[in-house]
């Protein structure tokens, strides 16, 4: 579904040249939920923006369903890391969520229904009439999520979407995302810093190295498809996986691939569990 081939991105300007992404090649299958982790500043946002057609790569290409991505493809939703700035301050929450729907040919009643559902699922029904800047950080972030959900996308790119919400809400939203993914079969690419979250959510975890970035490791998450907050997180396999990811990130930060005997077997390219 999503093919990233030899992606390279160099930022230039204002007296600074940064090779953010050096060479990334990987594939996300249709209907897969892939989590992306990596050290701060390694180029996750850059990668996501390139995949979303918001940024032109310096070289390499991104293919969506076999066709190169040159601009934002239809049916794709993006949750930005800078949630505060991605909401329009001149629109009330309701209108912010509704705006992208207006581009789709939907009946007004259907639109309203989608908006109400999305807001409810992130627990913001009460705030529908407020302006974004009247909300707390976490609430703003949930508005951005609601907007993406209401859009009913085929591909969902989320850039640290739960960074500003509390633990309980976070757990609820994680289950919400997994639930939607299972019901609708959408393709999700999910950037997070929370390793537990990556392992809990993903079918596969992609670990990126520090900048200039390459894929440090791809890890199949061989947990059962049915996951829940109480049992999955205490499963021994979960602990193993999260320790492995953590060590890989530490290794990435030290600038080289971890060479840990005890996790070798995890790199096996076993078929996804679902």
């Amino acid at each position, binding site marked *: 579904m999503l093919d990233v081939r030899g992606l390279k991105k160099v930022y230039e300007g204002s007296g600074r040249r940064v090779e953010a992404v050096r060479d990334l090649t990987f594939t996300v299958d249709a209907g897969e939920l892939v989590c992306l982790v990596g050290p701060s500043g390694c180029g996750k946002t850059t990668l996501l923006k390139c995949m979303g057609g918001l940024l032109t790569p310096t070289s390499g290409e991104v293919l969506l369903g076999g066709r190169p991505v040159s601009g*934002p493809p239809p049916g794709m*939703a993006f949750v930005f890391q800078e949630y505060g700035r*991605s909401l*329009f*301050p001149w629109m009330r929450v309701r209108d912010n969520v509704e705006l*992208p729907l207006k*581009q789709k040919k939907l009946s007004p009643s259907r639109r309203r229904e989608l908006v109400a559902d999305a807001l409810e699922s992130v627990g913001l029904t009460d705030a529908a009439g407020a302006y974004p800047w009247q909300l707390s950080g976490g609430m703003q972030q949930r508005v951005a999520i609601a907007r993406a959900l209401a859009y009913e996308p085929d591909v969902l790119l989320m850039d640290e979407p739960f960074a500003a919400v509390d633990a309980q809400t976070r757990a609820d939203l994680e289950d919400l995302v997994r639930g939607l993914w299972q019901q609708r079969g959408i393709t999700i690419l999910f950037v997070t810093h929370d390793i537990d979250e990556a392992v809990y959510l993903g079918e596969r975890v992609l670990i990126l190295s520090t900048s200039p970035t390459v894929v440090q490791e791809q890890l199949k998450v061989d947990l059962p498809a049915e996951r829940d907050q109480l049992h999955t997180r205490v499963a021994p396999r979960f602990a193993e996986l999260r320790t492995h990811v953590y060590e890989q990130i530490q290794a990435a930060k030290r600038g080289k691939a971890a060479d840990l005997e005890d996790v070798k077997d995890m790199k096996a390219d076993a078929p996804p569990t679902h």
Partner: protein
Amino acid sequence: MKNLALRLFFVLALPLILVIAWWFASDSSTDVYWPPLHTILTTFPDVWTGERLSDDVLPSLLRLLAGYTAAAVVGVALGTVIGSYRRVRAVCEPVLEFLRAVPPPVLVPVIMLFAGIGDTMKIAVIASGCVWPILLNTVEGVRAVDSVMSETARSYGITGSARLRHVVLRSASPQIFAGLRQALSIGIILMVISEMFAASNGLGFTIVQFQRNFAIPDMWTGILLLGLLGFVLSVLFRLVERQVLGWYHGLRDTSRRSS
């Protein structure tokens, strides 16, 4: 209630002080060009009531309205296009800057060639002057749309007219309003200038007539009337702005309210 009284105080205090200062400074003036304020004030009702109101003030206001509206439409439309496309900006900017630097009094003959000497000409003159602050501010406002916001819009497929209406114009609106505000007073100035040419009625025309015929107190009442007009229009403008930019003032005020 207390709030209202305070606001009223702020609106009136400084003007009152200035008027009182003027009153006493000019009280014993014998200079023809500097008549005492009380002469001006007693002349005022004689000059600006009755027929003058409908024959001179009203036509002027209508022309102002027409010219201003035209400038607003053209300025915002053109400004959006120029602001959105770097190449268009590069092509148009020199010509626009050139035209902008031509003083309206010498532009008037050229406009007259195209637009005759009737109201069209005056409206064109007003519009040709008002358009610049609106245009420039729109260009800058459109150029400064927050990158994350425009990326958001792009990624959700909000393009074309929806993007223009919901994102670009709204985001640029604080700056567009700065331009509209500037244009309002320039419009009044150009209303006067346009009525100095080929006119036979209007506020500007009347004032110039007074000046030429040495009816100096009458001329001063005209200047006062222009000031009053500007003031009233700006109050109206502020009402509209408060409405349209409500989100913006709310956003900007949150921190200030507390300090």
